[in-house]
């Protein structure tokens, strides 16, 4: 690599900077710098009316300076770790359900004729044309106790002698809406991957005596692993920080780490602890992504 860089012409170098400059600047301004600010804020004391206590104070009586009390508070008992684990499980479940639902769909689209394919892709991205919160409010109506869906389910449950259930304000409602929000993020990378597969490979496998299941399991599936990992990352990472869905559709026990962080900034006015939670969440997600990247590097050898 370095050899090629040495031989790079000046104009190529300028082009490279022009291309990578804006996103780099964007990341620096909107990710790196705020990140550093958050790390810094997590080591400070909360201000009296919200915000942060001053770093230096003229009057030594007022609270000021740096502290690790928020980290001590977090690791002082298990409850916050429990919220992390709970969010992790919710995000993982969302990812798996999305994967199971998206894979056949992506495969179907990738193997359709070209005109139908474009139409189907358009349908997949159609939900993006409206804000997802509007979709969530629609789900509130669909899942409501007086809506046909809930009533039909309860009639069916009644036949089997099972007590009626309520869909709205339940973990089920949260799960449904999470899958609804993130499904396209799984379909898109899967489709992009599956569409590139050379059909000749499947023909060759058939000629060698592989049945339909073997052709899928030993040819298509291994080749699609990069798509699976990409889609899973796109679903899992935002899902673990979700707060709007559990807040609007969740019941009395559906709290996720996103809700907890939001509460620190608005309700409790404890910015340092909110920052600590956000940083620990980021670290946890990075850890997961790193593990997945390792796995995909190993699994992706077919691609």
């Amino acid at each position, binding site marked *: 690599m370095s050899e090629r860089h040495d031989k790079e012409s000046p104009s190529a170098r300028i082009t490279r900077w022009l291309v990578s400059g804006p996103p780099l600047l964007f990341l620096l301004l909107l990710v790196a710098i705020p990140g550093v600010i958050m790390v810094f804020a997590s080591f400070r004391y*909360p201000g009296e009316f919200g915000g942060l206590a001053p770093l230096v104070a003229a009057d030594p009586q007022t609270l000021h300076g740096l502290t690790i009390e928020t980290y001590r508070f977090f690791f002082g008992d298990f409850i916050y770790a429990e919220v992390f684990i709970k969010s992790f499980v919710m995000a993982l479940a969302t990812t798996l359900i999305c994967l199971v639902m998206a894979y056949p769909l992506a495969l179907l689209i990738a193997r359709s004729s070209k005109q139908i394919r474009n139409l189907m892709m358009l349908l997949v991205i159609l939900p993006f044309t409206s804000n997802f919160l509007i979709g969530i409010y629609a789900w509130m109506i669909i899942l409501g106790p*007086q809506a046909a869906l809930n009533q039909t389910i309860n009639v069916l449950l009644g036949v089997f002698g099972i007590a009626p259930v309520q869909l709205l304000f339940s973990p089920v409602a949260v799960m449904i809406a999470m899958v609804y929000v993130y499904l396209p993020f799984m379909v898109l990378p899967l489709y992009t991957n599956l569409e590139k597969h050379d059909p000749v490979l499947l023909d060759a496998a058939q000629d060698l005596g592989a049945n339909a299941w073997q052709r899928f399991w030993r040819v298509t599936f291994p080749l699609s692993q990069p798509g699976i990992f990409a889609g899973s990352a796109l679903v899992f990472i935002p899902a673990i920080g979700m707060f709007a869905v559990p807040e609007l559709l969740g019941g009395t*026990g559906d709290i996720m780490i996103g809700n907890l962080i939001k509460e620190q900034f608005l309700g409790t006015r404890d910015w340092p*602890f909110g920052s600590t939670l956000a940083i620990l969440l980021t670290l946890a997600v990075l850890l997961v992504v790193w593990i997945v990247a390792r796995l995909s590097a190993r699994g992706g050898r077919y691609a």
Partner: protein
Amino acid sequence: MLHLYNWNNYISDTTIERFEKQCACRVVQDYYSDNEEMLAKLAAGATGYDLIVPTGNAVEALIRQQALRPLDKRLLPNLKNIDPAYLDTWFDPGNQYSVPYAYTITLIGYNSEKLRGMDLPLDSWAVVFEPRYLEKLKGHVTVLDSQRELLAAALKYLGYSANDDDETHWKQARDLIIRAKPYWAAFNASSYIKELTVGNIWLVHGYSNDIFQADLDAQNAARGFRILASLPKEGAVLALDSMVLHKSGPRPDLAHRFIDFMLDGRNSSELTNLIGSGNPNLAARPFIQPEIAHNTAVFPGRAQQARLEMLRDLDRNRRRVLSRIWTEIKLR
């Protein structure tokens, strides 16, 4: 031109128009939907507001930050209209900076038809916290998604002050809440008005203005039921919003004129008729629609009035302790 920084939907258009005609000036409004948002915006350096209408604890914060201009009471002859019970409050002794505008009470709202014949003690927080009553309402109750409000209701039911900050009392309140939680549908601060109106939710712990709104909506939709409010006998939280002058306001003269204008009975009554807010102005009573004026949940008698409490701000350590208890409540 008068710059007013006010809550959403917290003044009637007719009132504004009348003032504009009277003073030959224009009123420019900016809106906020909670005190924290307003404080944050001011802390970030927003200026130019003549008048703000914060709740008690936010008034106190602004006074402590020295962000307010003292009132000149010679310019406010109508101040005599205010019920003395709402003057000389803890957040502004002697009313040097603030004049009461309107109030909200956090109470019980319920569906008149669905609860008919259930024989529930609707005049007590017991109906929100006791499983033996909640059994009949399982899945049809919401409580406010607010740490302070819910804790205050639980503390009141246990016989403590809403501002009690003894941790053992907090833990008792926590256990009470966790025991009642399986019967509640959700912690909700946003969509419970709609859910009440539609008839999905039958009983709420909510704000008096919201319950009034749900009742109006239910009547307009001809639902065949009413959403009624009840003030629990153990007492409840009162949130008093007051008019204050911000130091950065360029027109304190107009602001004083506006305050005195709003202290006039008829002008003051228009807000109550619009959103069902509590009104501390005695001269406004004759102008308030009888149905609202006779609602003892919003206009309680003396004895009940004494059991209402305003929430005071907690210090940062208490806030963190409460937040931990709240997380526990949400997780269990």
